[in-house]
């Protein structure tokens, strides 16, 4: 049945070469944990992407109940976590996944650093990876405010104070992030917009560039 559907589509669109080009590549021996168990360090990038996919999915589902507004944010999070079936699991995935993404991305960066994989011709991909790291931290920072509890409020206040201490442009950054004179209604609205539209858009563009470069340049050779 599945095979017949695939063949019907393939006969019209010739999709086999497309997915072969994307997915059908042999894993080199030095990055395959089945050959050398220590090669598991090469999995961190893929694991980061896997968790990122879970973050995007669980985040999409959370917005079915979440309301980005100072009067409703806390109550809507409380409602979706305690009154909606599996709310604690879906929010838990997003909560723990957020930390896990940072950890895995850091391990991936260490692996690239210590195997020297950032060297010619892969310098651009290192830069793209660093930009991705920044976007991920931005996602973590903007997402932290959204439950609008005490921890969220004061973490954001402190974060914005730190940003405000940047010489010359600190106050401008503060005003941009805060949106108003205080951390309040305007802050949560723009943090939500950054968290669900702007930063994920930038993130997907960077990841696409990251993966295209890996395809073009191949995995770096053994040590």
């Amino acid at each position, binding site marked *: 049945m599945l095979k017949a559907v695939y063949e019907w589509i393939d006969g019209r669109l010739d999709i086999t070469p497309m997915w072969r080009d994307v997915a059908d590549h042999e894993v080199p021996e030095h990055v395959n944990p089945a050959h050398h168990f220590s090669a598991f360090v090469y999995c961190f990038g893929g694991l980061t992407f896997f968790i990122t996919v879970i973050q995007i*999915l*669980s985040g999409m589902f959370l917005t079915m*109940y979440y309301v980005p507004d100072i009067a409703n944010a806390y109550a809507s999070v409380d409602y979706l976590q305690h009154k909606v*079936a*599996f*709310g604690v*699991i879906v929010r838990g995935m997003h909560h723990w996944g957020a930390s896990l993404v940072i950890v895995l991305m850091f391990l991936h960066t260490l692996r690239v650093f210590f195997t020297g994989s950032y060297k010619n011709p892969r310098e651009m991909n290192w830069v793209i990876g660093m930009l991705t790291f920044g976007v991920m931290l931005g996602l973590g920072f903007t997402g932290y405010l959204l439950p609008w509890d005490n921890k969220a409020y004061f973490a954001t206040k402190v974060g914005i104070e730190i940003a405000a201490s940047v010489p010359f442009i600190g106050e401008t950054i503060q005003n941009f992030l805060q949106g108003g004179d205080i951390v309040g209604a305007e802050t949560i609205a723009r943090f939500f917009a950054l968290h669900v539209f702007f930063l994920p858009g930038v993130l997907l563009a960077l990841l696409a560039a990251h993966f295209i470069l890996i395809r073009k340049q191949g995995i770096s050779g053994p040590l």
Partner: protein
Amino acid sequence: MAREHEEQPMHPHAPRRQMTRRQFLSYTLGAAGAFMAGGVIIPMIRFAIDPLLKPKAVVPFVKVAELSQISSQPVSYSFQTLQIDGWIEKNVEQTAWIAKSSAGELFALSPVCKHLGCTIDWNSNPQHPNEFFCPCHAARYTPEGKNLAIAPAPLDEYEVKIENGFVYLGGIRPNTIAT
């Protein structure tokens, strides 16, 4: 050489119907992948469809009118009910048209038109006296709520309870008085 001998099938002419190693591995990998993907996706789907599976809230009865004041002429009564809307709970004003039928039975009609949900009014169209009339698309109903024009069904009614000379109204159900 000895190995080659061992690998000879027991019955050389019988077709081998065993699974190949490659098939076994790809099925196992597919099943493990589906299990993990399911573990991620199923909680999310259940989370999203939760409103469909929530039990309907039981509507409590509210004291609305004095029994002695109800006549055969429908009169609109307003009353407050607690509406639970996710994380927001608030009192909302409801309206009921209360009257007695020709048989002397008390009934309370919902003001929501059964055509497309506008609000009906009593005796508001001079061309159709003593009827409920909807201003949106001119749907009309008898005093008992039977649909005369446009609307596909009679007006819904509130559940009625009479205690100590007072009328209490509860949840909304399909009309039972109009014939």
